[in-house]
């Protein structure tokens, strides 16, 4: 019960008017940053970091972490409304969120996504509160082979669901290819930059996604004239309550995604990987799995819950070990040092007030965040009532700004345009885009982990079964990959047994 005492003490610290004010400011800023594609949690926090130098550290981290929560919540908004992921981790949310909006159910999709996010955050905070030191030790067990196995698991849980295998393969390979542009950190050599210094930065995931999904979608919907059809949603506050009534049905998805998210946050796999894995696994195991992609609430809940759980859990290794579990956590970690705190294993011992104040604030600010974002649902859903002729050019402008802000490079806007055209053509030709996005996000990280492993093992593949941890994950990944085959075999076996049993009696 030591933790409970400390937690209540933390609440006493966090619950001052000043800190609550910081919380609200942070969340609102976070929502704005989350809505704008290109500006994400890490740069949002980095931009505001210098403002906090004069604040007490606890208030400073409360405000900055609230920016992070706000952006985690808000990434879903543009994904659902316009098919443009505001954050990298909300790409998977577009798969079902946008179809829902097209059916006039944007309010439901947003409510479900926010509530799912909140649930994920809550599970992760509970984990941090009660199991931090224990779980933190677990994170240390992750070396290169374990990382590779986790990435493999993400791929395998997501892949293998496309209609046309050739096109799925092409899409995925294009993603890998884009990810490989720039410097290969393992050998320190440049790949596919063709002597062009503009390509040194690589092609950022967000630029591709803004083009493929955002601009591509606008072009596609232009074909049928000027209407985002069937989108004039009925908007009232009741939609929140109605959606909440439907949610308990998806308890299994919620818990599964929260668990995936916590896992991916602690072993720095990241919120983006978590959201894809959450979506992929829900699709595979849900009874409505076949209908995913056509506008299922479950398909919105699964990635959002996992992403927010992962984003929150990423603070655990940061607090307990000084390891950043995500890009945002890395910036916060830099902040700790600037405020004069020494992150690392001793933080829990030496800076009790700070740590527990932060943890307590995570409960409060996620509740505050949920209330704030839910109250914006009618507002955001109302955006869809604005005539297309007004909203379309604004979206295009925001896409251009988003592409530019990622690296501050003009060329990225051209790339966005190029990927917009590619997105339009590929969509018309029925190429699935999800595998491309997934391999673009995780491709180079998986490759780096694999090659680090090979350097250590001198090229032996046995290392992926060298201990129980990596062995379990690798095996799980292979099971996932061959799941359709296994399920088929199992059913066949059962049937033949039943048949045999039937014939004997």
């Amino acid at each position, binding site marked *: 019960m030591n933790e409970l005492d400390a937690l209540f003490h933390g609440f006493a610290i966090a619950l001052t008017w000043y800190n609550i004010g910081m919380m609200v400011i942070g969340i609102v800023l976070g929502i704005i940053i989350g809505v704008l594609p290109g500006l994400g949690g*890490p*740069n949002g926090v*980095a*931009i505001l*970091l*210098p*403002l906090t*130098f*004069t604040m007490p550290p606890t208030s400073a981290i409360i405000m900055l972490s609230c920016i992070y929560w706000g952006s985690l919540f808000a990434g879903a908004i543009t994904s659902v409304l316009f098919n443009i992921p505001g954050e990298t981790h909300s790409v998977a949310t577009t798969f079902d969120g946008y179809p829902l909006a097209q059916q006039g159910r944007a309010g439901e999709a947003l409510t479900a996504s926010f509530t799912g996010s909140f649930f994920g955050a809550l599970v992760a905070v509970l984990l941090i509160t009660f199991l931090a030191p224990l779980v933190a030790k677990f*994170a*240390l*067990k*992750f*070396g*290169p082979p374990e990382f590779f196995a986790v990435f493999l698991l993400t791929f395998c849980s997501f892949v293998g669901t496309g209609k046309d295998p050739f096109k799925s393969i092409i899409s995925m390979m294009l993603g890998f290819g884009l990810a490989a542009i*720039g*410097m*290969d*950190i*393992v*050998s*320190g*050599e*440049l790949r596919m*930059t063709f002597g062009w*210094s503009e390509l*040194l*930065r*690589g092609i950022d995931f967000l630029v591709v996604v803004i083009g493929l999904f955002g601009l591509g979608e606008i072009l596609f919907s232009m074909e049928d004239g000027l209407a985002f059809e069937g989108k004039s949603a009925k908007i009232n506050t009741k939609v929140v309550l109605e959606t909440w009534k439907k949610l308990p049905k998806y308890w299994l998805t919620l818990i599964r995604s929260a668990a995936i998210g916590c896992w991916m946050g602690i072993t720095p796999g990241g919120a983006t990987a978590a959201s894809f894995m959450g979506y992929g696994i829900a699709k595979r195991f849900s009874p409505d799995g076949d209908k995913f992609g056509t506008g299922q609430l479950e398909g919105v809940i699964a990635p959002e819950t996992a992403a927010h759980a992962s984003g929150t859990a990423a603070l655990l290794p940061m607090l307990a*070990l*000084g*390891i*950043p579990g995500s*890009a945002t956590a*890395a*910036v916060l*970690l*830099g902040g700790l*040092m*600037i405020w*004069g705190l*020494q*992150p*690392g*294993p*001793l933080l829990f011992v030496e800076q009790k007030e700070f740590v527990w104040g932060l943890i307590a604030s995570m409960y409060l600010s996620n509740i505050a965040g949920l209330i704030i974002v839910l109250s914006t649902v009618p507002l955001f859903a109302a955006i869809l009532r604005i005539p297309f002729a007004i909203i379309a050019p604004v979206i295009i402008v925001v896409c251009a700004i988003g592409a530019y802000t990622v*690296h*501050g490079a003009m060329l990225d806007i051209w790339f966005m345009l190029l990927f917009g055209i590619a997105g339009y053509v590929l969509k018309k030709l029925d190429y699935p885009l999800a595998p491309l996005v997934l391999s673009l996000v995780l491709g180079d990280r998986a490759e*780096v982990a694999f090659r*680090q492993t090979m*350097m*250590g093992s*001198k090229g032996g593949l046995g290392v992926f079964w060298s201990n129980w941890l990596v062995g379990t994950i690798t095996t799980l990944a292979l099971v996932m990959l061959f799941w359709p085959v296994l399920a088929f075999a199992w059913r066949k076996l059962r049937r033949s047994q039943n048949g045999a049993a039937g014939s004997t009696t």
Partner: protein
Amino acid sequence: MRLTMFKSFNKFCLRPLSGALLLCAIAAPALADWEPTKTVEIIVPAGAGGAADQMARTIQGIVVKHQLMKQPMMVINKSGSSGAEGIMDVKDAKGDPHKLMAAFSAIYTLPVAVNLPFNWRDLNPVAMIALDEFLLWVNAETPYKTPKEYLAAVKAAPPDTFKMGGTGSKREDQIITVALDKVAGTKFTYIPYKSGAEAATQLVGKHIESNVNNPSENIAQWRAGEVRALCVFSAQHMVYKDKITADQSWADIPTCKESGVDVEYQMLRGFFIPGGTTKEQVAYYVDLLKKVTATADWKEYISKQALKDVFLTGPEFVKFLEKDEAFNTKLMNEAGFAHKE
């Protein structure tokens, strides 16, 4: 009131039109020195959260806190291709005095490793404000107490058994590893990671046997008693005498040379502005950095990060750069890291 008028006047005068600038210079002879007229960007050719980024953001914080500059300052990370993105960005911003690049040894090693069309002479050197040290670290649960013991164990084992972790490939950490191999006759397997923080965690998790991190990258683990510092790759002991662990301060760590391992490496932490800028512009930033490094906040920062307090500017800085470049290039060539066509 006067101040705001002065500011807007200043802003108006110093637009790029050189004719207008001349006019203003005549109109306001007291305004001989240059001052930024818009937001100054600190370009960090490394990721957010790393050592270079932290330093840039600390400086930004100090500038804001002590109001050392009228215009705002912001930090921009351009970490693509191990920082080549940021370096080329500053090179291409010829004549723009509103960009300040946080430099480290990548300015010499990158052009050699990947044939980048860049030389630090393309830029205008401002000042070096610190030197970063490198140490040899092992996991605290291993029995090695001195570098000799450790390197003997590495040598006794079959080649490539011991793994050394570090940041990136063909950069400072790997240079040191190769130099170590040469001096001690060992054969490490070098595993490149994305950041020093990752190399630190991997050492605690025993996925590698040692690393050569900067003090700031390993201090958290050191204080917690999870890693052990064997020696520092520097000619003298470090100066910070406050106890960090139960019984050791930075100053207590022996140099590698006195432990019989003659390897030295230190890394500059300095600032450049793009080429084609004027003397006055350089002078402004030298002055700014002088003011920054004079604050108590800065002193506290460098003692926490265990940086070596050095301030070099003007011809001395250039001389240092020339020497340091030759040193790095030689090491890169010896290690066989030079770009091959």
